[in-house]
């Protein structure tokens, strides 16, 4: 058994057993047609664990050039966990057999009409991941400590489709994580209480 898997599982189970007010979601901006989607939050099993993030290809129709978790729309009949693993496989050649799934976290409805289920899992570190160039320009790994530190969650006001809205920026190593991805990170960090080392 991996100590990281056990610790994340414990924090995940404890953190999702309570009501949390004010979790981020953009459901008030979403169109009436909502499509189900899933993303994989893959935590690397190393002494200082990291999280895998991708750069979308610059010419993608949606979310072009953005930093994102591996993920995408659910296929008919598919559940969120299967879809998240399939997308990570398609985008990064991350074998589903090497992901130990912990569970599905709070859904996030985007302003573009996706109902995203984040799936948390643990993966071996330093796998030779290969981006699929039609979907992903590249990938990088950010320390979990950095992502989950509230001091790194910087609130911003942006104009989006003629409306003013609050968003969050997380910077790391020259990468800017914002929008849906940053909001999902903040929600999960509130669930996991990762930084309460003695907790």
């Amino acid at each position, binding site marked *: *058994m*991996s100590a*990281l*898997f056990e610790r994340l599982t414990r924090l995940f189970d404890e953190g999702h057993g309570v009501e949390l007010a004010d979790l981020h979601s953009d459901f008030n901006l979403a169109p009436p047609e909502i499509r189900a989607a899933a993303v994989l939050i893959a935590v690397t*099993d*190393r002494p200082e664990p990291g999280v895998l993030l991708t750069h979308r290809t610059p010419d993608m129709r949606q979310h072009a050039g953005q930093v994102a978790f591996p993920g995408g729309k659910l296929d008919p009949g598919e559940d969120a966990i299967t879809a998240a693993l399939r997308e990570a*496989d398609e985008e990064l*050649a*991350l*074998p589903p*057999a*090497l992901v*130990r799934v912990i569970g599905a976290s709070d859904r996030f409805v985007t302003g573009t009409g996706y109902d995203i289920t984040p799936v948390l899992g*643990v993966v*071996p*570190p*330093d*796998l*030779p*991941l*290969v*981006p699929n*160039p039609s979907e992903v*320009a*590249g*990938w*990088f790994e950010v320390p979990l400590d950095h992502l989950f530190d509230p001091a790194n969650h910087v609130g911003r006001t942006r104009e989006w489709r003629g409306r003013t809205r609050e968003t969050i920026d997380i910077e790391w190593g020259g990468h800017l994580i914002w929008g849906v991805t940053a909001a999902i990170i903040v929600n999960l960090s509130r669930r996991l209480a990762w930084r309460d080392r003695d907790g």
Partner: protein
Amino acid sequence: MPYDAPPSLAALSLTEIAAAVEARKLPPVASWRPAETVDSHMRIAADGTWFHEGAPIRRPAMVRAFASLLVRGEDGRHALLTPECRQLVEVEDAAFVAVDMVARSDETGPALAFRLNTDELVVAGPEHPLRAAGDPDTPALYLAVRHGCEARLDRSTWLQLAEYALDHGAGSWVESVGQRFALTPA
């Protein structure tokens, strides 16, 4: 990190080969001591093809990911290692196949570099010895890759090596990175 397959071996200098070997980052499997052992239902055929539950794994990227976790224990059994689990893999001959070879020399002497079916480059030497098995008429050459796993030289690579040995000595041995390796079984 985009993935760039190494260019054809013939185009590479010794410095470039060394840089490619150095740049490859692999999972730290030697630091893991998983308590659990299970069957992966995977098999690596003699030609290097991976099978899962009888079906070939056709995506090279998937094979590279699994191959980065391969170890061979002292009991001779191959396994995929993760922090939690040792998943046994059946290997028909060797876990890897060496599919190309190139000889380079610098001021320290000759170096023989091999390309594996997983696109990885390995330079024969003290850390990656060549081993000759089989019978003297039809020897089977193996190259130590990592964590006890070996690559079997395919026929054309073996012929390249034999030709190189004839051009650079008696033909019964080769030298790479300061070490001599016999090409016929002892």
